[in-house]
């Protein structure tokens, strides 16, 4: 444990930028929105910025990326295949606990199943992670209901907590410890940990009542979604409100469905692209020939909530797929973000 003066905290990012491509929360001047993105100049980073509009999943799972290139022509009948992996070293600086949890979901899903996703591993394996304890929850936040915040508990290299004029710096890995030692920071003691606890408690206490009221309901709803004891009417109601825009899946820190397409890049060259996809799109399950087993929208909506909330899906992430960041609630034009879905199901249970 170490301490660093608030005015010096970005020196950590500066130090990281010598070895890593640094990503951090930056407030965009034109819109006032926060984006978690690559920074050229670490002084742009704002640790007190509101929750970023999109999670940092694009650092490990870009919205569009080339994973392979090949050349083939009918005349030469010679195929040349070249894989494209992102081998840059990235540091995520000022990550929130919810987004770290989302990243852990992706880690377990892409690297911990029967097959390891090589494209993902290459993005991920040289990464340095600095989390930042959330001392101010935002309007849509409900990480207290999904056990993913407001303070990160594991999975970071360094964790920062704002203690007023200083940041408490905790190392969560050997890599983080070695990095902090190198900077000869001031040592912290148990009194600082106590201060951290006060910050976290205060943060939890200031969550919107809807979030804290929902706490018990999330697990109850998970049980319902798993066992399937939810009336068709509820799914129909949710389906009726869905615009099929895919925004919820794009802003979700743990959603990772992708599509793969080969596109021409010159006369005989093609790029194999991997792009984000969404289970709310009608063509998601449509097969060649047109048979589509998941046609009605309520059927597809039902599947996203099943994926986030059912026990059987938890084996992918070793926790619920929802991390309580509230972004789906924020972006959904049809008012069926996950917290609202929990509310609809809760109404059905209580009525």
């Amino acid at each position: 444990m170490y301490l660093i003066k608030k005015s010096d905290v970005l020196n950590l990012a500066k130090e990281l930028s010598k070895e890593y491509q640094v990503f951090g929360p930056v407030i965009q001047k034109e819109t006032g929105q926060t984006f978690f993105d690559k920074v050229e100049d670490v002084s742009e980073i704002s640790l007190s910025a509101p929750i970023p509009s999109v999670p940092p999943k694009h650092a490990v799972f870009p919205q569009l990326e080339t994973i392979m290139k090949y050349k083939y022509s009918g005349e030469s009948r010679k195929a040349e295949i070249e894989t494209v992996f992102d081998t840059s070293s990235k540091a995520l600086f000022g990550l929130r606990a919810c987004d770290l949890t989302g990243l852990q979901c992706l880690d377990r899903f892409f690297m911990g199943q029967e097959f390891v996703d090589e494209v993902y591993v290459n993005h991920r394996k040289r990464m340095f992670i600095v989390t930042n304890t959330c001392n101010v929850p935002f309007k849509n936040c409900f990480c207290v209901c999904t056990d993913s915040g407001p303070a990160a508990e594991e999975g970071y290299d360094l964790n920062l907590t704002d203690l007023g004029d200083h940041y408490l710096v905790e190392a969560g890995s050997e890599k983080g410890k070695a990095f902090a030692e190198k900077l000869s920071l001031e040592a912290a003691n148990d009194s600082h940990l106590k201060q951290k606890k006060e910050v976290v408690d205060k943060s939890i206490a200031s969550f919107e009542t809807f979030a804290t009221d929902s706490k018990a309901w999330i697990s109850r709803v998970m049980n319902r979604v798993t066992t399937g004891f939810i009336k068709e009417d509820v799914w129909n109601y949710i389906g009726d409100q869905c615009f099929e825009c895919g925004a919820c899946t794009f802003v979700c820190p743990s959603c990772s469905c992708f599509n793969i397409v080969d596109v021409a890049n010159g006369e005989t060259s093609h790029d194999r692209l991997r792009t984000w996809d969404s289970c709310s799109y009608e063509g998601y399950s449509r097969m060649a020939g047109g048979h589509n087993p998941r046609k009605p929208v309520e059927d597809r909506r039902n599947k996203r909530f099943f994926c986030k909330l059912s026990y059987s899906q938890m084996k992918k992430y070793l926790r619920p797929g929802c991390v309580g960041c509230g972004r789906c609630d924020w972006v959904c034009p049809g008012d069926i973000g996950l917290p609202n879905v929990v509310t609809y199901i809760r109404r059905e249970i209580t009525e």
Partner: protein
Amino acid sequence: MGDFKIVTVPEVATIDEIRDEIKDVKTFYLSFENKALDSQFKIKSGQFIMLTVFGAGEAAFSLPPSPENDRFHITVRTVGKVSAALHALKVGDKVGIRGPFGNGFPFEEIKGKNIIYVAGGIGLIPLRSSIVHVLQHKQDFGRVAVCLGARTPEDHMYKENLKEWQSGVPGFECHLTVDIGVPGWTGEVGFVHTLLNKVDIPMDNTVAFVCGPPVMFNTVIKELMGRGLSDENIISTLERHMKCGIGKCQHCAIGRTLVCTDGPVYTYRQIKTLGEQI
């Protein structure tokens, strides 16, 4: 698991031979450019591969060859972008292969049992692998009946195999039917489930393999269960839109399972609990 698989980067293979099966359906015999792979690349009956047609894309195709003593091939109907591009290729052209993926048929568990195969149209493609395998190992299984339905007589595929299957191998029978009879057709006319009337195999020590379009599937299931076959003894292989084959893209999700890694072979008991259309 532990078996050799081409996971991420496709390996280049050559089309050695192309055969016309039926209208819009061709069989492509393939061998790897890297000859060392031909011996490493071992399939299980019921698995599938991801095939790249350069310039068109990648898609999943089921594997009709038996795991042993059978030339590696795929049989494909032209229905979409990749299959149409594949049909346009000629002998000597190259394709890319990843796999083999999926669980495969449970041969160990069904040893000693009678087997009834019911296939509608090109539903025979994945079942061919199993039928050829079972015929090669006839001593390990009980009586075997193959019931095949097709729209017209010309739509019955794998003509060479059919000849062998109908040649009166002891304990092995093969029945054909067509939806639409034509002059010269002396066989059965009617949907494939009606062929079960000709099958005289007791249901108590029997498994059925069923593959075909959803409408046919449902009728056949009803018929089999009506004859006393239990749902765990009905085995099918499912088809889904797939992009990766390795359990990551999630396109093939059915209920809590992914067809690419948990399937494509399911028992009807499992299918019933998936909570989705098949």
